């Protein structure tokens, strides 16, 4: 999932202050918790209360889209609702927000969220952690399903480095050393010989900006 956090409300109020009729578009897609219909509604309520305190009366429409990053899907859902709307506030990640900006070139589209990374949730602890950087050359097959590019602070491909201490990273003692995790996992799988293979430096060209599906 793509991990986002809400922007402060005063920042949003600053964006929106020139406009009155606003569409808040939720996204049911990949965030956790999903910023869908409920968050769109909650945000509209908060902004309305915040607007009143600034002597500003907004009129909100709230809706949600299964995946805002799908321009075809987003356009079919949102276009019929756009009549009279002066600005769009997107609850999606940066991708969804950009998609809406493309769909509605004549309208200002604002992000309601800050987008952080591609990650996963530790549900019991309620923590989200980065798991993938989109490097374009997936190594998970040989690293026991644990990504050193995303999870090693130094992005090492032939770890661990000398700074690993009691399984933790020297740069952040809270963080597990990804290479120790890889070692333990491969050991459990009986595939430690995979570690003997040298991996050449990453080809940064692979994390390019366009691919054909």
């Amino acid at each position, binding site marked *: 999932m793509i991990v986002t956090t809400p922007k402060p409300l005063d920042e949003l109020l600053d964006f929106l202050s020139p406009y009155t009729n606003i569409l808040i578009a939720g996204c049911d897609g990949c965030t956790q*918790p*999903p*910023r*869908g*219909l*409920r968050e769109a509604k909650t945000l509209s*309520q908060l902004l309305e*209360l*915040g607007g009143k*305190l600034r002597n500003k009366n907004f009129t909100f429409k709230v809706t949600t889209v299964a995946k805002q990053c799908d321009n075809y899907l987003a356009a079919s859902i949102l276009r019929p609702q756009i009549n009279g709307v002066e600005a769009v506030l997107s609850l999606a990640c940066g991708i969804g927000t950009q998609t809406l900006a493309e769909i509605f070139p004549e309208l200002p589209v604002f992000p309601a969220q800050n987008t952080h990374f591609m990650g996963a949730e530790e549900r019991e602890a309620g923590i989200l952690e980065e798991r993938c950087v989109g490097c374009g050359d997936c190594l998970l097959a040989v690293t026991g399903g644990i990504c050193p590019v995303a999870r090693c602070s130094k992005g090492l491909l032939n770890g661990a480095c000398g700074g690993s201490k009691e399984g933790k990273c020297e740069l952040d003692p809270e963080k597990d050393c990804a290479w120790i995790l890889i070692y333990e996992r491969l050991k459990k799988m009986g595939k430690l010989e995979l570690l003997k293979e040298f991996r050449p430096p990453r080809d940064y060209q692979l994390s390019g900006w366009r691919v054909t599906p």
Partner: protein
Amino acid sequence: MVSQKDRAQVEEVIDEVSGKVYLPPCQIACPLGEDIQRSHAMLALLRLEPEEAANQIIEIGNEIYEKNPLFPICSYICGLCEKECNYKDETGAVRRKMLVRLIAEHYLPYLETKPPLPAPTKEKVAVIGGGPGGLMCAYELSKMGYQVSILERNPELGGALQYIPRYRLPQEIVNSVINSLLRIAHIEVKLGVQMGDSGKTLKDLKSEGYRAIFIATGTPVPRPLTMEGELVKGAELEGVIFGLNLLYEVNQGNVPPRLYKGKRVIVVGGGNVAFDVARTARRLGGDVTLVCLECEDKSSKDGIPADVEEIEGATEEGIKIVYSRGVEEIIGEDGKFRKIKCPRCTSVFDEDGRFNPKCDRSDVIYVEGDVLLVTIGQAPELAFYRQEGLLNERGRIDIDQLTLMNNLKPGVFIGGDVKRVGFAAEAMRDGVIAAESIDRYLKGKELGVGRKKEYESAPILKGTHYKPQPELVWAPVEERLNFEPFEQGFTLEQAVAEARRCLCCGPCKSCKACVALEFQPEIPEIKYNEELCIDCGNCVFYCPCDAIKFKSPRGVRFDMTLCRACGLCVAVCPAMALEMENWEREHISALITKAASETEKPKILVFRCQWTVLPPLDRKFAPNVGVIDLPCAARVETFHILEALQKGIDGVLIAACPEEDCHRQTGSKEAQRSVVALGERLSQIGLQDRLHFCTVAPRHPEELDRELEQFRQRIEAIYSKESR
């Protein structure tokens, strides 16, 4: 139109997977199937006003009475439910017995005036034996409209209850309960009636017009001492008596209060009755030693069978216990008892689990005394059964285990201890079973159809906080060596606190206490809009009851047998795909609108969990305070809090149970989490002071008053600043 009373009737909940009846484990353990969870929930929600509370307790008593008219007696001698309580292995079982005792204390005065059942008009039925089994059968039959007569050999009813020492079961309770039962159920009693040889036959009863007969004559015959199948010599000596006879005579008042003063009394036996005898002898002034075959370690297969409380109590009272000793010979002098010869018992039960004691006769001790009380069990008196042809060729009572009808004589039903020695409540269950069979028999219906039921026990919910079990308080030894009860009962407050410890493990529909108390019109269902569902799984993750499961390939399904109707799933659903019956979003919105228009400025709205603060539900609040009661704080949605502020409410207070007291396990905690998160966002626009979350201890409305007063001052300060 279904009446409120009908809606409050418990329903049988069948587990979807196993097809079994799904119940809390205590209720399955209770031979009479008392609605234990329901009465605990009702006690937990007792009103604060003493008079209303007293009426409510009588209502609870009426409900228990319906299934068990002997419950005041059970509240002194039973406790089978506690053995299966889910809490047992955590911090100790919920003390149901003491809770029922409190209910009984309030109920007994009312019982004297309780209106009788309608006079029975159907066929005559005879019950032979006036113990718990017979009384119960008579009551059930009378409820069904049959005219019942109990025939009892002794000069009083009660059967085995008459052998229980008064310090454990007060006489006046036995008398009051039995006399009221006879009056209420129009039961005719014939005392001193002998059956068999010197008395009546079944044929006589038939000719007297009895159309069916239930026989529950118990086990009145004390077992004599034996060693390897042979009777132990010396039982005829002066001073050797059966403990059971002592118990009966003491209860009848036929024994001088200091009978055993200065005497050394030996009690043989390791069961609860032996301890009754030992503690009775101690109360009669004796210096008591108890000798038993079994060893001290209760967890061993040969461990002493008496309850821990009995062993502890007896030891405190100065009774010495000699473990792992049999009795080979009773030795006397001049015809009087002097001592017993006790070889070491090496094994009590054989490999098949049968009682088959083995002793090492080379390892012998002698225990000296003046009196020997033999209390090693009781047996039925089968002569009458033999004469009437009720035994099979092996000499056993020949009955169908499901219906209790004798296989040889239709219309004759047999149950209770005579069938198999057990607890009083088990004999009472036989009475209920026999009554049902007799009804079917007299109506010419199939006796066994649809009666075999299997039960599935409900587990503890997740996220449970365990509170310690209250200690039982006994009078100090020097004050309790008499026949007055020495166990201190609960006060009302203690009882309510203990009832609140009940986890209500069973499904809502098998309890419905909240419906009976009119907190809600019925157990709400969760309505699921599959079209809106986005498969995020939040509801599955947050549900404290594991009632929501993923469906393959998409969507979720709700198992309403497990649902406790807290509404947490509704509040956490990001797609607003869930609704809760009776607490729909729109309905709550309407209540908010009403509160916003009816309250005075500055307007305060309280969302209150009905479980924590319900007892004072009807209390009046200040004119600027509106209150919305919710099934659990978990049902509070950010949507409604913000809506209230939008509609002109100046401050919103959420009153939840303390986390460890939450009736819905994680409900209070999750409500707090979401309110705190909302508070952080409100602080970004300067409205953080308009929202307050607090916990209120159950039955302490003054805590809510205090929180409300502080909050009111805060909101008023903001309001006066704004108005300026």
